[in-house]
């Protein structure tokens, strides 16, 4: 029985499957132009579905995360790792310098559900609205200049057990990504790595937005959809 199964598996390499044609290029050509402009990361994802390798040892349930790992959302890259790096439990938020909202490098978005933030911080092109205090954070809304498909500003590391889900968000360029469950690590340039709570990431055309600390996906989406 085992030998038969082994032979069957061995046979796979000897089978006369035709060479796989370059389907990805054709897919790219046939995707609608209008949507290509409006949904840049979805195009990238669609092509990625066709061309990206998923490591042979990659467990099936993680196939979707493999794609996320490679693509991220807007300026935030989501990377799945086997083990999270060591993070000090009380790592500072690393939000940067407190600023007057008027001094932000771009017009800030706010949600009427949250009202005025208790603090606004800037680190380069990353602006964070803090609700609560640095010691007792309720909600963090991070606004990052740029929504292009060039993940480079922020990086999130998540390990197995972290749940990731695509969610539609009104007004967002493409679905958002909801990360919940096991804590994940967030890294912004110049800031220390720290553990993050449930997070929603999405883009609105000119900014990549990140909401951390919402109690539920429903609450996160409600806040996201009222940001203006």
């Amino acid at each position, binding site marked *: *029985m085992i*030998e*038969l*199964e082994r*032979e*069957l*598996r*061995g*046979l*796979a*390499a*000897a*089978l*006369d*499957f*035709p060479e*796989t*044609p370059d*389907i*990805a290029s*054709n*897919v790219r050509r*046939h*995707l609608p132009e209008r949507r290509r402009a409006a949904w840049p990361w*979805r*195009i990238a*994802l*669609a092509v990625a*579905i*066709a*061309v*990206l*390798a*998923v490591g042979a040892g990659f467990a*099936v*349930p*993680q*196939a*979707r995360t493999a*794609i996320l790992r490679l693509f991220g959302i807007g300026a935030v890259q989501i990377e799945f790792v086997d083990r999270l790096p060591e993070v000090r439990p009380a790592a500072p938020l690393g939000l940067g310098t407190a600023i007057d909202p008027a001094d932000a490098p771009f017009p800030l978005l706010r949600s009427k559900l949250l009202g005025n933030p208790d603090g606004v911080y800037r680190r380069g092109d990353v602006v964070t609205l803090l609700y609560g205090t640095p010691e007792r954070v309720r909600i963090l809304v991070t606004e990052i200049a740029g929504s292009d498909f060039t993940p480079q500003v922020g990086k999130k590391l998540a390990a197995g057990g972290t*749940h990731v*889900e*695509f*969610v*539609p968000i009104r007004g967002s360029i493409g*679905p958002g990504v909801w990360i919940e469950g096991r804590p994940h690590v967030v890294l912004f340039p110049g800031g220390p790595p720290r553990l993050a709570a449930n997070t929603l990431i999405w883009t609105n055309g000119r900014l990549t937005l990140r909401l951390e600390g919402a109690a539920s996906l429903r609450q996160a989406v409600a806040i996201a959809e009222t940001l203006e």
Partner: protein
Amino acid sequence: MHQGIAFRTAYLIAGSSSDAEEAAHDAFVKAFGALGRFRRREPFRPWLLAIVANEARNRRRSAGRRHALALRAAEEIRPGDAAPSPEAAVLGREQRGVVLEAVNRLSEEHRLVVACRYFLDLSEAETASVLGIRRGTVKSRLSRALERLREEVPAHD
């Protein structure tokens, strides 16, 4: 690669290379269109392969092909394969031929489940998605197919 596994899955079901290419292509475009609906807590690849398999079945139906492809072994050693000794090559080829013929003699539903699991190396869940059956059915069908193969290839009693 997703495009590799998608193409081979489509090839297995559609039975022709050009139909497989079209089926995989259309499946990727459809998957793109349906990405917004992809929010279930399910792994990605079975979802994609189910779309591929569906497209491939449609192609096969429109081509009026009633039977799936008979699998063949490649004549030549592929690049990167270790070159076996001539004896080993002949023996290997003969044994391969016997097993492959037995696989090809299986009923189509048995042949497809064997091909998905062993030739495409799909998981049970992926095989279930591709064939449009439950995981339990994949298990029982595979078990019957292996029994049949053991009868056909007596060396594996």
